């Protein structure tokens, strides 16, 4: 085995460009503290893609937003290329904002409906003074539009005139405008048909190969995440419950939630219904959660001890991490 980092206990074969350690984000809501992200740690190596999957509402987008500092964290640390994001000065943030970008999950609420397609895509170029004159600006915007497959005729169109898929591509073009090094891709292809989806995934992979981009790739589409990611983390109610290299994790998930998740993938073939693990639909609330495994109320293997203390994310077999007392039996 290679050396392991003392902080995150991951192999030090590649240098991580991003290190997240004990990250927390609590929201104050009417009924108490909502633990959206609750003690999350992970690394991403330069030029790699970390896939992030998990239940809807488990804190994926919040994690992404914390990384690019669209939310202030409650506690914990995010180190990007040596700079602590959570306490970066305004000047450092200006620099970080050009290297770190986010493609937003919701193309409707993340773009200004009163601006034209071109001005939405080009806005970061103006804010960060990346172009010197109008000609250069227009050229760069048109080039970005071509890159993501938006026809030039849409230069002056408004977002409401576009279908869901094209609106999503505006967000992608905007994120690429500043030539970032690291992109949080939050469901970047979910609104797209499978052919355009394939075009965008190929584009992201080509850019990665050419420019060494690093991605945090959040999605519900497990075949997409498998295709694009080197490693995967699975989240459940604000916490990482499983982490491992993509191929191995897909072969054999070792956390009961991971198992349920992978068993529910719909397959685009006739009569392919497999043995699905149907989860009990009992839902626990992320507001002031009680200690203990958060998945236990729905877990088929749960024992009384599971509900006494939070299970730590630990290495169950080489490279495979799970936050489950019983994980050994699933290896």
């Amino acid at each position, binding site marked *: 085995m290679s050396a392991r980092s003392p902080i995150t206990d991951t192999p030090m074969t590649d240098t991580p460009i991003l290190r997240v350690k004990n990250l927390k984000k609590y*929201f104050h*809501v*009417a*009924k108490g503290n909502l633990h959206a992200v609750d003690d999350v740690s992970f690394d991403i190596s330069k030029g790699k893609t970390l896939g992030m*999957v*998990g*239940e*809807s*509402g488990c804190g*994926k*987008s*919040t994690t992404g937003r914390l990384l690019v500092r669209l939310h202030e964290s409650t506690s914990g640390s995010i180190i990007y290329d040596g700079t602590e994001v959570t306490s970066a000065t305004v000047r450092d943030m200006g620099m970080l904002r050009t290297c770190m970008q986010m493609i937003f999950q*919701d193309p*409707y*609420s993340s773009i200004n409906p009163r601006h034209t397609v071109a001005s939405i895509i080009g806005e970061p170029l103006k804010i960060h003074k990346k172009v010197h004159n109008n000609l250069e600006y227009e050229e760069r915007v048109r080039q970005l539009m071509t890159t993501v*497959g938006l*026809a030039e*005729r849409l230069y*002056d169109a*408004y977002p409401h*005139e576009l*279908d*869901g*898929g*094209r609106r999503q591509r505006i967000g992608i073009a905007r994120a690429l405008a500043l030539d970032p090094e690291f992109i949080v891709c939050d469901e970047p292809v*979910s*609104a797209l*048909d*499978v*052919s*355009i*989806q*394939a*075009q965008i*995934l*190929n584009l992201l*992979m080509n850019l990665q190969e050419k420019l060494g981009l690093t991605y945090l790739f959040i999605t*519900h*589409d*497990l*075949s*997409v995440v*498998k*295709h694009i990611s080197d490693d995967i983390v699975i989240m459940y109610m604000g916490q990482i419950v499983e982490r491992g290299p993509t191929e191995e994790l897909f072969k054999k998930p070792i956390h009961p939630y991971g198992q349920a*998740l992978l068993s*529910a*993938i*719909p*397959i*685009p*073939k*006739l009569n*392919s*219904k497999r043995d*699905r693990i*149907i989860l009990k639909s009992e*839902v*626990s*609330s992320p*507001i002031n959660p009680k200690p203990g495994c958060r998945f236990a109320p729905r877990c088929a293997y749960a024992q009384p001890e599971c509900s006494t203390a939070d299970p730590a994310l630990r290495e169950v077999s080489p490279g495979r991490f799970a936050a489950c007392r019983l994980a050994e039996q699933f290896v």
Partner: protein
Amino acid sequence: METILALRDLEVQYYSNRKTIRAVNGLSLDMHKGKVLGLVGETGAGKTTLALSILNMIRAPQGKITAGNIRFAGNDVLTMNKHELRNMRGKDVAMIFQDPMTALNPVLTVGDQIAETVLRHEGVSKEAAWKTAETMLETVGIPADRAREYPHQFSGGMKQRVVIALALACNPKLLLADEPTTALDVTIQAQVLDLMRKLIKEQGTSVLFITHSLGLVAENCDEVATMYAGEIVEFGSVKQLFGNPLHPYTKGLFGSLPDLSAVSERLKPIPGLMPDPTNLPSGCFFSPRCPFATEICHNTHPVDIDVEGHMVKCHLYTKKGGKA
């Protein structure tokens, strides 16, 4: 089979920058009671426009239904008055919007929004309506103690689930589900689809299921239609379409999928983009991208061809003995 919805020669246009966008082009389609029809197709093919048309919700001056007719349970939707339309929308025909925020009011709590719909259509007490709202939220996997929160406090998938709860609260006869589960993880997706199936079985609800996920179509639909540039280019049972896709565009869709059981370097998308809807090509709309296109494809618009009860709009099959 009882027909619940019949569309005939529907044409819908939008107007922008003095250009005419031909979003739906002479489309005919039947939906049957208690059946789920999957609608797949390219981004911008006109799927959402089609669903909005069924509710007569294409708004002037941006857009207009320029030809054709729509019958829901025998009634002509395009001649209904305001009152009839209001009764139909939300009660008999419910829509799960692709963009949850078009259906949600940002200044009302999610519980209030569902309760309000129930109050308007079901004539129950305020308390009963609130109870229904809480039950519906739990059914879509949102704890009832979150009913007093606002949409912006919810994650993308949670907003989508609220919209689903809203659409199902009044037991509609026809459900127009526009990408209802794209923002949901597969386990919650499975729960929501179970709920939908229950509704179909108990109430005979018909569903138009718009989705990009061929996996969901295979597992949840009875029939499938492929849409391209405002037309249905292929229609058949799930068995026909998945067992033997005919249209080159449908074939291309299957070819673009990442394969779960294999490691592949790059995906194989259909090359090129959809034609400009303000300037559709003469001949077959897919011909500029079609690997099989011949001269006739570029010059003559294809008609529907029946290949053993499986409809396809493609010249390739005229030669192969399909009936026009």
